[in-house]
């Protein structure tokens, strides 16, 4: 029962979150100063995702094999590897370091 309450509430909330921009704003053009803020959302949220997915834990920083994955991924990016290669290299590095430690 608890499970279904969680599923329902989170499902409805997430659907509303995802639809908020397209439903409330639609095709209306944003004022220039707001557009300047929104244009920066992608780099900021991506940077935050990189951090939280690398060292994020619940109420703590966790430094583990993911760091190796991101490090190897960064090297692959610097070497201009295609994106699928970056993802595979990062997964392999994470798995290997985890296996070795």
């Amino acid at each position: 029962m608890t499970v279904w309450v969680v599923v329902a509430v989170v499902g409805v909330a997430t659907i509303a979150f995802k639809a908020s921009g397209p439903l409330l704003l639609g095709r209306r053009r944003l004022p220039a100063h707001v557009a300047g803020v929104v244009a920066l959302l992608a780099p900021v949220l991506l940077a935050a995702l990189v951090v939280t997915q690398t060292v994020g834990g619940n109420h703590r920083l966790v430094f583990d094999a993911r760091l190796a994955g991101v490090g190897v991924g960064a090297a692959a990016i610097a070497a201009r590897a295609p994106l699928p290669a970056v993802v595979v290299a990062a997964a392999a590095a994470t798995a290997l370091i985890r296996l070795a430690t």
Partner: protein
Amino acid sequence: MRTVLAIAATVWFFGASFGLLARSSGLGILAPLVLSATTFAGSAQFAITSILGTSGGAAAAIAAAVLLNARYVPISISVASLFHGPRLRRLAEAQLIVDESWAISSHGGGRFDRRLLIGAGLILYASWVTGTAVGVVGGSALGDPKDLGLDGAFPALFLALLVPQLVGPRAQVTALLGAGIAFALTPFTPAGAPIVAASAACLLGLQRRGQARQP
């Protein structure tokens, strides 16, 4: 296209591991599937699973998941202009917004590709739900997703998608600030809150523009 398929494969395995984890945490078979079909956001679903699985209450699970998914408010605002037509259609199409589909459809400078967002979103949705289904039914054969290093692949993916966005000092400074906020808050807040708080770094865009307009 190759990129989308590579991400879809990763998402599929992640969906399968979610299904497996949810099943073994006592969430049953149907609830994880419904959750994947409606919520369609990995991190929140994993948070729910781990909280309910460790006998945390419904309120804690809901709070964590809602906090994690609150980032979809700014994300959906950033792509709002791509959606048109009747409200119901916009509501439905907006559900295809997920971190990965949003990130690969971004061309930088606030421009997004609608076809990529919707196309990738559909493929990733199918991967996520079928992955979940396989996971809840027979996931134990797949092994532990951590053994495959998938948790290290996602931050690398986001890093690869971030790099082309870092054009110009303003994007670089705000991204660095956002990363700093996320890092600094992580020890003190539940997962999810640092990402939402980091989006405040975008306000630099507001200030700089205001300053630039002054003679």
